[in-house]
C-alpha cells in the first residue's frame, strides 16, 4: 500500500504561529494547478504500481480551492496511479471556508474525510493566532459537515496558548468533545523560529505558559479524551475505534508515499525527497521540466533511527519483532541495551515484544528517543 500527499500552498491570511509552507497570494492559482497536475503525471512511477490507499490534501489551506479544482486534481491522480476503491481521501479545511454548499460539494466529489482547523473555540485565542475564523464558525462547522454527510471528521486543536489557563483549555476540550468527532489532533503550540509569534515572544510582548502548566494541560487532555473513548494513538492524535488517520499513520509506519506540490515530501523506503518550498519557482521548474526536488538517501542507521523516532510516537511503540527482522539481531540487542536506562526510570516499558513510552514518558519523548538512537 502507499499514499499520496498533495500540498495546496494557499491561505487566506497568515496565522501567527505557522511555519508550514504557504502563501497568501492567490494570483497564480491556475498556474499552480497546471503545474501540480503536470507533476502528478511526471512522478507516476515513484510508487511503482503500489495500490494507493490514501489521498491527502494538506496545506496551506486546501479548502481555498473550489471543488472543481479539487476534482481535477483527484482525477489526475486516478489517471496515473492505481487508487483503490474506497480510498481514504482527506481534505484539510478552515472553518471560515466551510459553507453548507461547499461542504455538500466536497462530499459529492468523493471526499470522505474532513480535517478542520478549529484550534480554539475562544475568540481571544483565535485573534491572537490571527485565524480567519471566529468562535461561532468553530462551533458550527462540524454540525454543518455532518449534515452534508461526512462520517469521518477530525478537528485540530492547539494547547499551551499564550494567556490560556488550564480552565480555558478544559473548556476547549469539552466543547470539542461535544462535537463528537471521530478524530482529534491536539498540538502543543510550538514557537517556530521566524514566525510573528516567535517575534512577539522574544520581544516579551507575549508570554507562553510555563512547561509545568503545559504538562498539566497535556495530562488533562489525555484524561478527558480517554474518558470519551478516544484512543491516544500518536503523540498529537486521538481517534475513536477504527477512525485513525490512515494517511498520517503511513508517516509513522514507514509506508511509502509521494508528495506533490511545493514543499511536499516523498519517501520510498530508501530515500526521502522534498520539493522546493516556493510556489513561483515550483511552477517554473515544473514548466521547464527541471528538477524541482532534492533527495537524500537514507543509510541503514538513518532508517533505524527513523524507525525508533516514529515508532515511539505511536501507541504501539517499537515492534521488536519487526525491528529484528528489518535490522538484525545485533541491532536489536543494541537497542535493548540503550533502552535500559529509560526502562529503569519508568519512562519506557516493554510489553508484548514492544517498547512503549509510558504515561510519564510521554512529555519527555524527545530525550527518550535520542537516547535510543544509533550512532554513525
Amino acid at each position: 500500500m502507499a499514499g499520496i500527499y498533495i500540498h495546496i500552498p494557499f491561505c487566506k491570511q497568515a496565522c501567527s504561529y505557522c511555519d508550514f509552507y504557504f502563501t497568501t497570494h492567490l494570483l497564480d492559482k491556475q498556474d499552480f494547478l497546471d503545474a501540480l497536475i503536470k507533476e502528478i503525471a511526471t512522478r507516476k512511477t515513484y510508487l511503482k504500481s503500489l495500490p494507493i490507499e490514501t489521498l491527502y490534501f494538506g496545506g496551506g489551506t486546501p479548502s481555498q480551492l473550489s471543488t472543481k479544482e479539487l476534482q481535477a486534481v483527484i482525477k489526475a491522480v486516478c489517471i496515473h496511479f492505481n487508487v483503490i476503491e474506497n480510498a481514504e481521501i482527506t481534505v484539510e479545511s478552515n472553518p471560515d471556508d466551510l459553507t453548507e454548499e461547499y461542504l455538500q460539494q466536497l462530499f459529492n466529489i468523493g471526499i470522505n474525510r474532513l480535517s478542520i482547523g478549529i484550534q480554539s473555540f475562544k475568540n481571544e485565542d483565535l485573534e491572537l493566532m490571527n485565524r480567519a475564523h471566529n468562535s461561532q464558525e468553530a462551533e458550527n462547522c462540524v454540525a454543518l459537515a455532518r449534515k452534508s454527510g461526512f462520517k469521518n471528521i477530525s478537528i485540530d486543536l492547539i494547547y499551551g496558548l499564550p494567556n490560556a489557563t488550564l480552565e480555558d483549555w478544559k473548556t476547549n476540550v469539552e466543547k470539542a468533545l461535544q462535537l463528537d468527532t471521530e478524530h482529534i489532533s491536539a498540538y502543543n503550540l510550538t514557537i517556530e523560529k521566524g514566525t510573528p509569534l516567535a517575534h512577539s515572544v522574544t520581544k516579551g510582548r507575549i508570554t507562553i505558559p510555563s512547561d509545568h502548566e503545559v504538562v498539566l494541560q497535556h495530562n488533562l487532555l489525555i484524561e478527558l479524551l480517554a474518558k470519551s473513548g478516544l484512543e491516544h494513538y500518536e503523540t498529537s492524535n486521538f481517534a475513536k475505534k477504527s477512525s485513525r488517520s490512515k494517511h498520517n499513520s503511513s508517516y509513522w509506519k514507514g509506508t511509502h508515499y509521494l508528495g506533490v506540490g511545493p514543499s511536499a515530501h516523498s519517501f520510498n523506503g530508501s530515500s526521502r525527497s522534498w520539493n522546493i518550498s516556493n510556489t513561483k519557482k515550483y511552477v517554473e521548474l515544473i514548466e521547464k521540466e527541471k528538477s524541482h526536488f532534492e533527495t537524500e538517501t537514507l543509510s541503514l542507521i538513518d532508517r533505524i533511527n527513523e524507525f525508533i523516532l516514529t515508532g515511539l510516537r505511536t501507541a504501539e511503540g517499537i515492534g521488536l519483532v519487526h525491528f529484528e527482522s528489518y535490522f538484525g539481531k545485533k541491532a536489536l540487542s543494541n537497542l535493548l541495551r540503550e533502552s535500559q536506562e529509560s526502562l529503569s526510570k519508568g519512562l519506557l516499558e516493554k510489553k508484548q515484544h514492544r517498547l512503549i513510552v509510558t504515561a510519564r514518558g510521554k512529555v519527555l519523548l524527545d530525550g527518550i528517543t535520542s537516547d535510543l538512537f544509533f550512532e554513525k
Partner: protein
Amino acid sequence: MKNIRNFCIIAHIDHGKSTLADRMLQITNTISDRDLQEQTLDNMDIERERGITIKSHAIQMDYEQDGEQYILNLIDTPGHVDFSYEVSRSIAACDGALLIVDATQGIQAQTISNLYLAIGNDLEIIPVLNKMDLPSANPEEVKDQIEELIGCDREDILSASGKTGFGVESILEAVIDRIPAPKGNPKAPLRAMIFDSVYNSFRGIIAYYRVFDGEINKGDKVKFLNTGKEYSADEIGILKLKQEKRDSVKTGDVGYIISGIKEAKEVKVGDTITHIANPCEQMVQGFEDVKPMVFAGMYPVDTDEYEEMRDAMDKLQLNDASLTFEPESSMALGFGFRCGFLGMLHMEIVQERLEREFNMTVITTVPNVSYIATDKKGEILNVHNPSDLPDPSKLEFVEEPYINAQIITKSDFIGPVMSLCIEKRGILKNQVYLTTNRVEINFEMPLAEIVFDFYDRLKSVSKGYASFDYAPIGFKRSDLSKLDILLNGDQVDALSALIHKSNAYYFGKKICEKLKELIPRQQFDIAIQAAIGAKIISRETVKALRKDVTAKCYGGDISRKRKLLEKQKKGKKRMRQVGNVEVPQEAFLAVLKLND
C-alpha cells in the same frame, strides 16, 4: 670556518621574522620561487593556519659576497611569550641575532626580553626596522627607542620590508660583516651542542646541533654527555629546506644526526655530543630543562580511548619536548593525564594537535599553576592539581608561583593597566618612560592571575596598545582556599580550584551561575553548590526538565527531527556522569568563560 655565520631572528610576536626569513631564502636561492609560500619556515599546519611560529626553524643558506662564498645558518624563532624557551635554545647555537622591530609598532615587551636573552649570550645584535613599506611606519621615533634600548649608533639600524624585499641584501651584508665567524678548534675532540630535536614518523628522532670543536663524521661512535647514552651516527647532514646528507659536519657548522634514538627524553636540548673514543673535556654549557607554567587535566572524551591517548601523547612529546604529562584519574572524568604547559597558548595548541594529528578529542580541565603545600608536620608537597591539596585542617601554608610581569603601553593607558594589575594582586615594582608617550611597567604578580582572562582584559583596557612579557621569580606564601563544586551533593573533583581568599565568594558565585547556564536541564532538579571546606558559599538550581516533546511530526518533519535528535545524542555521549547528573564538556572549562 671564517666564512660561516650562525645567527637567529628574534622579535616581538608578529613583527615579521618569518616573512623576512622568506626573503632571505629567496635572495640566497635556498628556495625556488615555486616552493616559496608565505612564511615558508612555518611548516606545521597549525603554524600556517594561525600565522604564528611555534617552533624554531633552522636552515642553511649559501651566499656570495665580494667573490667569497659564505654559509649562513639562520634560525627563525617564535615571538609568543609561551615559546620563549625556543628562543633561548636557538640563541645558544648562534653568534649573532637580527633584532626585528616592526616600524609601525615600535619596541614591545618581547622585543626587550628576547634582546636581553641574546645579550646575555654575548650575541652580536643587528637591529632591523621592518615593515617599512607601511605608510604608518614611524622610523624616526622607533629608531630613538632602539638607540635608547641598545645604545647603538643610529646608522647601525637597518631598514627593511619583508613584504617588498627592500633592505634584505643589506641585512645579509651586515650579517657577514658584523657577526663574528664561529670560533672553535677544528683539531680538538668533537664538542657539539644539541639545540633542537624533531620527530619524523619515518626517520625517528632527529637531533639538531651546532659543532663548537672538532668534526662529526658519518658512522662515528658518539656519546651524549648528559644522558650518557651512546649511538652510532647513522646519518648526518646539514639543514637545507630539506635535510641534506653529508659525510661530515665541521667546526662552526650546524647539522642534524639520526642515530636510532628511541625516546624523546634521550635528547636533552643543551646536551653535548662527543666521540666515545676521544671525548671532549668540557661540556658546552647547557641550559635548564623547561619548566611547565600551567597544568591541566586532559581526558579522552571517549573513556575507552585512554590507551590511544597515551600513545598520542607520547608521539606528540617527541615533537614537543616542552610538554610534560603524567597519568591521573578523576571521579568525574575517568582516566587521563595531568599535563604541564608553557602557557595557555601552548595548552591550546597541544589540544588542537591531539585533535588534528591524532584524531583524539579530549576534555581539558581548568588550568592551574603548581603550588607548594607545607603541612602541619612540616612536610612539603608539590601540588599540580587543586584536588591533591591536603585537607585544610592538616595544612600549614601554601605557596604559589610569582612572576615579574613587564608591560609596555602608551602613557594614556597607564591608569587602566595599573588597576588591572592591582586587581590581579600585582605589586608595582618599577615604571620607566621609554619615550615621552611609551612606558614600561613592572609588576610582581601571582602567575595564577594571568592564567585567567588576563590577556584579554589587558588587550581591552589598553585598546590593544599593550604588550606583555613575564618571567618566573619563585614561590611566595599566599592566602589560598580550595573552592569545591558540588552537583546534587557530589563533589566534582575536576572543578576544584585554588582561589585567593579575597576572591573566593565572588568566584564561587560566578562559577555557579555559569554552570547553571552550561548544564542542560535533566529529569530532576540539579543543585549546584560552591563550597570552601564544609561551608557552602553559593548555590544555584537547574530546574528539572518537565516537557521535551515535539508536537508535529509529519513527512517533512521526520528527517529534520531525526537529525536534531542525533545531534542531541552525540552531545549526550560526550557528557560525563557526576553522581546522577550529566555534565557537558564545556562545563569543565566554565571557569575560563566567567566573563562571556
